[in-house]
Every structure is written in C-alpha cells, then in structure tokens.
C-alpha cells in the first residue's frame, strides 16, 4: 500500500532529522518518546470514539485491547500479550511485524537508538489520559539483532477518577 510506504518513509525522515539536530542518540530516544506521548494523548479519544470498546475492567483487558484493537486500528498489525508478572501489573507486547522499520538498517553510529521509541510514547500518553500511569520500554528490537519486537508495559499507578473533593474541607 502506497500510503503505508509514505508513512514509513516520513517516520524515517523524522528520526534522521532528529539525529542531525540533536546529535545524541539518547536525546533522540527521549524526543521520540515525547513526540509519541503528544500523539498518544490525542489519539486515545479517536480510539475510544471509533473502536466502540467500553471501559476495561482490569489492566489485563487493557493490554489485550491495545494489542488486538489499538495496534490493528492505527498500524494494521496485532501484537501478542505475554509474560505477565504475578500481580498482573506488567506484561510484554510482542510484535512480529512492524511497519515502521520496513526499509531500516541501523548503522554502527546509532547502536543505542530505539528507532521505534515513538510507539512506547504513544502507549504511555494514551493510557495516561484514561487514568493509568505506565512505564513503557523496549526489551527486544529486531534492528538491534533480536528475534522480535517486544515492548514491556508496566502499570505504575491507577489514578482514581473521583474528583479530589474532601468532605472535611
């Protein structure tokens, strides 16, 4: 699909430009994450408006919805949710396919780069808007020689939705 190719190339151009501007791989990682966050806080409403999913009962359901509905809707792929920890607050999203990297090979000078760091930012931003503080990090990255893409999703805090009214104030 031509549209997807334009998307992939545009993303590549952005990463490239950031590397030129910031001259530091860690800074680029940070900037990509921040850009993703800014996208995520807007994208979540579109997701809720058009996917017809309702409120998730727990974090497990949230992760499944991201992997199966969210990734499908915005990237045309699905992810697998695995490696839950015992208390159900962190898990891995494994992507077999990743349209962002179709034509990418990381040169030696960019070894510390998380090329797809925008995605982790998007998820973090989107979840924050529905009262979940999370930490999203890359565990495996095929551009760095791993066998798949794996995002680690950790729920830090569920912010209660009640208004901060205290009866005695």
């Amino acid at each position, binding site marked *: 699909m031509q549209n997807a190719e334009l998307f992939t190339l545009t993303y590549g151009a952005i990463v490239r430009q950031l590397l030129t501007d910031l001259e530091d791989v860690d800074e680029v990682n940070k900037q990509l994450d921040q850009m993703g966050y800014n996208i995520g*806080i*807007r*994208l*979540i*409403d*579109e997701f*809720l*408006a*058009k996917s017809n999913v309702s*409120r998730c009962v727990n974090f497990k359901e949230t992760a499944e919805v991201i992997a199966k509905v969210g990734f499908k809707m915005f990237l045309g792929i699905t992810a697998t949710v695995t490696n839950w920890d015992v208390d159900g607050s962190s898990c891995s999203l494994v992507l077999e396919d990743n349209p962002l990297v179709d034509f990418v090979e990381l040169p030696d000078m960019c070894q510390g780069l998380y090329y797809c760091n925008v995605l982790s930012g998007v998820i973090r931003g989107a979840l924050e*808007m*529905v009262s979940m503080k999370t930490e999203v990090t890359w565990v495996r990255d095929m551009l760095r020689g791993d066998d798949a893409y794996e995002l680690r999703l950790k729920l830090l805090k569920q912010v209660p*939705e*009640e*208004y901060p*009214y205290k009866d005695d104030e």
Partner: protein
Amino acid sequence: MAAAINCLFIINKSGGLIFYKDCGSAGRMDTNDSLRLASLWHSMHAISQQLSPVNGCSGIQLLQADTFDLHCFQSLTGTKFFVVSEPGAQHMEPLLKVIYELYTDYVLKNPFYEMEMPIRCELFDINLSQAIQRDRVALLGR
C-alpha cells in the same frame, strides 16, 4: 421551524467551556451565560456521580425539564459533550457520538489545536453544521 437541538456545549476535563454553538432560535445565550451554564453543569455532573445510588455511576446522562431536555455524553478521557434539545427529542445519543468522532478528527488531529483550549477549527465547524443538518433532515423524514 424549530430544530431538534438548540445548542451544543463541549467542556474539557477541568470544567472549562471549550466550545459552544447555537443551533436553534430558542434559548439563545450570551457568552457569560454559556460559560456559567457549562461550569454549573460540570459541577452538577460531578455531584451526581457522588450522590448516585448506582455503584460506579458515570454521572447524569439526561436531564428532563418542562421546556427542554439536556443530553450529556462524557468520554472516558473526561471531555463532556452535551446538547440542549426540545423535550422528548429522540436519537440524541447517536448524534453526540457523531460529534465526539468529529471532535477527534477535526479538533484533536489538527496539529495547531492546543489541548484543553477553546476550539477554533473551521473544519470542525463545517462538519458539525453538516452533521446537525443531516440529523435535522433525518428527523423530518421520521
């Protein structure tokens, strides 16, 4: 001819009015009135959540009065959309849903829109007017 809906409000999650539109001739409001009504509704909505006997209540969805109905939809992210309509007006929930979709398309995806700020997006205005017009035509057809 009276329109089914008189006006539309959009309130951000902290209770500020970010959009107001008059659609009918009835109940036209000046800016101060619309701001007051918006923050009043925000507070009442919050109180209703606390007072409700229903567990996990998400706030008032419909307020029926002698001269108008007020239909409210709150997204999971906390933005509220509400319309004031004629008493007994039907199909307001799907209309609010459509408005929410237009908001995600023409407001949130506009890179020059700042989150939580008043909405000044022409494409949103145009598409919103069309949606309301379509709703009106459908209403005449029913």
